[in-house]
């Protein structure tokens, strides 16, 4: 698979500081969107992972799962996005799409495990996935989010991802009794 080397910020080891490095991004496949990253939020998970505090970090590690950027290239079968769109990427970049949970739009509970935006197994390149502390990212369009045009892109970065712990269904559920 063809790849391009892009600038990133990451760490080679738990004890090391984050510094500039090069990482590979794949060429877009038919369902992929290539995103020029404008902003990336900093989550405490980034720190836990960079420092191997959860004991499963694969190095080198490039954190970042609160990504906002512009679409710069789309694969031949992409239907949700076009070049120039303001988009976000959160904690996940893939899942099996076949299990009961994936079919119910609950990819986060994929029976085979969702593929995390960083420190997950990258099925395309065979390495670990690298996150948003980088110039670009290539993601299947299913896992790309639209950022409403009226929102401040930088402020949106914070919640394009874990998207605040308050998921919408949850928030709606919480108010259901009030509406009765």
């Amino acid at each position, binding site marked *: 698979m063809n790849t391009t080397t892009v600038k990133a910020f990451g760490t080679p080891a738990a004890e090391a500081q984050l510094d500039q490095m090069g990482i590979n991004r794949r060429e877009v496949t038919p369902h992929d969107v290539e995103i020029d990253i404008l902003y990336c939020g900093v989550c405490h998970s980034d720190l836990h992972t*960079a420092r191997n505090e959860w004991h499963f970090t694969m190095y080198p590690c490039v954190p970042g799962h609160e990504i906002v950027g512009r679409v710069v290239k789309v694969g031949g079968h992409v239907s949700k996005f076009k070049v120039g769109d303001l988009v976000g990427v959160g904690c996940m970049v893939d899942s099996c799409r076949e299990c009961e949970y994936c079919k119910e739009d*609950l990819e986060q509970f994929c029976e085979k495990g969702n593929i995390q935006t960083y420190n997950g197994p990258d099925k395309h390149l065979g390495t670990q996935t690298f996150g948003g502390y980088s110039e670009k990212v290539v993601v299947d369009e299913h896992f790309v989010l639209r950022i409403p045009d009226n*929102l*401040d892109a930088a402020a949106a970065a*914070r919640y394009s991802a874990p998207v605040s*712990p308050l998921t919408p269904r*949850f928030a709606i559920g919480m108010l259901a009794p009030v509406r009765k």
Partner: protein
Amino acid sequence: MGIKIAKAMGAHVVAFTTSESKFAEAKRLGADEVVMSKDESQMAAFHGKLHFILDCVSAQHDINAYLNLLRVDGSLALVGAPEHPLPVAAFSVIMGRKSFAGSMIGGIAETQEMLDFCGKHNIVSDIEMIDIRQINEAYERLLKSDVKYRFVIDMASLKQ
């Protein structure tokens, strides 16, 4: 974000804090009322009054004191991750048919719905923008909770 979103959804929002210094801040974010959680009389005023509690606390805390604030059929959803188990008294949930639940990230459709909701209501987070070369310093500040409320890296700084 929880306060802002709940307010936009039309809820009467009550914020709980252990620190008086956060009172004004909670109000600024949209809370209708703010309660000092260490003050038993302030807590007692809300016994049996709340439909839902979003528990974002990642440290040890008395979960029963909060379950007691729920109405019948109310639920408390934990999204924080305290290191040690939280003891739940049976009577905190059986009296009043209450639920103690948890949640983490949403699926893609839910996440898009949340972003669209925030777009419609013009809700954004409060952030502090940093250069990528400040990331190590930002991690140290994160450990001291010295950020309101999120660091965001301006990735143009990586291209320089």
